């Protein structure tokens, strides 16, 4: 196999637990985003658009959807004889089998994958963010600085800085201090969780980290601080542009809504930076005689007879006559009945909303199921769920995946209410 200069390791094993029912059965990178994509598509497309043609995708949490989505990497032109996409799941070894216990551990457990390709550099990515970035420019920077590791950073507002890993850098972009989620941040340069390492050096640190029983085996918490302590040359590569962690319901909703702006900050129409995904086989969408669509994005296969305002509609959605959908995200293949009103809501893939249903009624109330996750005006309806005719749902309501009409004990669920089946959610 021809040697690669750089390969990517894409960490896609996280649950993203703050997306609630949306990530109950699928990993966060596999969550639908932007009218036809899944979150991981943005990072995978960045790879191929940056001429990185060898990508190891490390999966762990609920990987089924992710695996079937990625397949052999065809949509991204990553079905290669030499390189391409490889899915790396935790596996059994002779002595024992182990789950990935942290981001660094996940890479360590796949050392043999990297060794076989023996690249000079490795770029560590996560499949959780929405952004367009040319990694090859970051690599140029890394080489020019003759760095041992380069961390991509973005300027964040002071008030948010304590949520991130914050770097302090010299004029020359050399990192001299790194603090994970500091109480009193000393700078506003936040780590984006994107690292380029010289593989030989990283390998050493991974091994050392593995042998340290007190380590959490995390890049941000252990590997980077360790390298810094040893006086390694770490540089910060400043990224300017749209970058969002869509890890909460609010952030996820907002980021989708951004796309309906006249000139969105994040442009999906860029012919020089296409976002690739597994395209469903659907005809172009149809807007009926009674249909009305404004300030929205609508994907293929949809049939719209109702009114859609300020919303994101994924492939294969049907909206019946007399229905008004506003400020909402309707995922693939959902069916919305007639004379229904949907306000500020996320409807999961394959769900059915009956006739004369009203969603998003009334005022905000604290969620009685899990206020840590559900704490906005947004009502979330899970995947493959049926909302029977005439149901009324308030705001900040959560309805589980796979709910059938018989699960409803009342036709009204007021704001802050929930309908969750017994199961494995926290």
């Amino acid at each position, binding site marked *: 196999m021809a040697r690669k200069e750089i390969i990517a390791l894409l960490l896609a094993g996280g649950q993203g637990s703050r997306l609630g029912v949306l990530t109950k059965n699928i990993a966060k990178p596999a969550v639908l985003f932007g009218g036809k994509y899944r979150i991981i598509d943005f990072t995978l497309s960045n790879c191929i658009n940056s001429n990185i043609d060898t990508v190891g995708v490390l999966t762990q949490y609920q990987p089924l959807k992710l695996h079937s989505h990625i397949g052999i990497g065809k949509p991204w032109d990553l079905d290669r004889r030499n390189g391409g996409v490889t899915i790396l799941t935790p596996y059994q070894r002779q002595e024992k089998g182990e789950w990935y216990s942290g981001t660094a551990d996940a890479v360590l457990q796949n050392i043999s994958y990297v060794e076989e390709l023996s690249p000079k550099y490795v770029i560590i990515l996560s499949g959780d963010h929405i952004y367009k970035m040319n990694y090859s420019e970051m690599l140029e920077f890394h080489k020019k600085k003759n760095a041992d590791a380069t961390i991509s950073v973005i300027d964040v507002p002071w008030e948010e800085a304590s949520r991130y890993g914050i770097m302090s850098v010299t004029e020359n972009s050399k990192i001299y201090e790194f603090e994970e989620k500091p109480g009193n941040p000393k700078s506003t340069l936040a780590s984006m969780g994107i690292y380029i390492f010289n593989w030989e050096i990283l390998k050493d640190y991974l091994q050392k980290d593995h042998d340290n029983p007190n380590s959490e085996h995390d890049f941000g918490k252990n590997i980077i601080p360790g390298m810094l302590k040893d006086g390694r040359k770490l540089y910060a590569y400043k990224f300017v542009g749209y970058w969002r962690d869509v890890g909460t319901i609010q952030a996820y909703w907002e980021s989708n809504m951004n796309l309906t702006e006249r000139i969105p900050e994040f442009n999906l129409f860029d012919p020089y930076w*296409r976002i690739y995904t597994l395209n469903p086989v659907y*005809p172009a969408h*149809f807007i009926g005689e009674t249909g*009305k*669509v*404004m300030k929205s994005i609508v994907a293929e296969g949809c049939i719209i007879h109702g009114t859609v305002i300020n919303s994101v509609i994924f492939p294969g959605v049907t909206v019946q006559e007399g229905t008004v959908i506003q400020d909402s995200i309707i995922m693939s293949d959902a069916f919305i009945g007639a004379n229904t009103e949907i306000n500020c809501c996320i409807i999961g893939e394959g769900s059915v909303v009956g006739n004369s249903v009203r969603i998003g009624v009334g005022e905000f109330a604290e969620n009685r199921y899990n206020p840590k996750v559900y704490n906005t005006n947004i009502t979330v309806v899970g995947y493959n769920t049926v909302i029977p005719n005439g149901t009324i749902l308030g705001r900040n309501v959560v309805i589980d995946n796979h709910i059938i009409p018989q699960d409803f004990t009342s036709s009204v669920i007021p704001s802050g209410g929930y309908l969750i089946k017994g199961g494995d959610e926290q």
Partner: protein
Amino acid sequence: MKRAMGIILTGGKNNRLKELSSERSIAAVPFGGKYRAIDFTLSNMVNSGIVNVGVMTQYSIRSLIDHLGSGKEWDLDRKTDGLRIFPPYLSETGTGWYKGSADALYNNLTFLERSDEEFVVIANGYSIYNMDYGPMLEQHVDKDADITIACRALDDLTENDRKTLGIVEIDQDSRIVDFKEKPLNPTGNLGSMGVYIMKRKFLIELLEDSAAKGYTDLVMDIIIRSLDSMRIYAYIFTGYWRPLNSIQLYYRANMDLLDPRIRRELLMDRRKIYTKVKDEAPAKYNEEACVKNSIVADGCIIEGTVENSILLRGVRVMKGVHISNSILMQGSTVQEDAQLNYCILDKGVVITSGKTLNGDQEWPLIVGKNIIV
């Protein structure tokens, strides 16, 4: 249906579709929002279980070859069988340009000889329909026919449409007793769909025999001459079918997709129509958009009024624009306050601000590729 192989004929040179087919084969004409005409026949073959498909191409083949690629979208990028494209070629015995459908097949006899399916389904690549060839093959076997031709009642086609077809007469047993190709005064209500089934070995013999006689056309030289000597049967198809034989047929077939019943039968069936994927973003509607009874493909950005129209990929409709009863192909742009009625814009057309273009329902106005109006 590993029992049959498929051959798609993409047609000779003609300007049936005027500007739309002057630079591309009719089989490659964009249709219905995101498709090319050939997608229908090719998907029909794949959905009928045919995985060994040859496409005979002749004129203006660049866009067709670009579209078909390796056959990936139809799952025809196979190690064994799959999609093969046969443009004309020169050799010591080969004659260059195909002189007709039979000549095209004869020049690629090796393909027929090396295949091992018992039957061949031959179909043209410029008809819009969603059909399972399986039952037709069953009937072919049951009737012990030499050739079976798919036929359809022509109630929903005009006299002018019929003049572009082969008109067929059958007896009580569905045996074809008369076949008139493109008659000036069409009588009879049954038309050939240009889909033929026969045994592969039978076709090889037929082609060798006709080559010796100097015959070049499958219909005119072989079928019509052999009605008495061969058992040629009609298989009656009752679904939606339109050959893109004229601008009127092309225009109406596109507009037919606005009918939910036809759209469902053609495009939303469990037998899906596959096409080359372009990775466009979902369509975007801005505040001023007003779209009614229209089909809109990915990649469009709309801020004007659109009704009874079909927008293919990546069309831009700016503010104050009014489009009705029109077909806009990939990447065309309609600038502020322009008005279009009964128009067909080919790929990449730009209609500048304030222009008004009016066609007629029977003669839609066609604007050729990349023209700036």
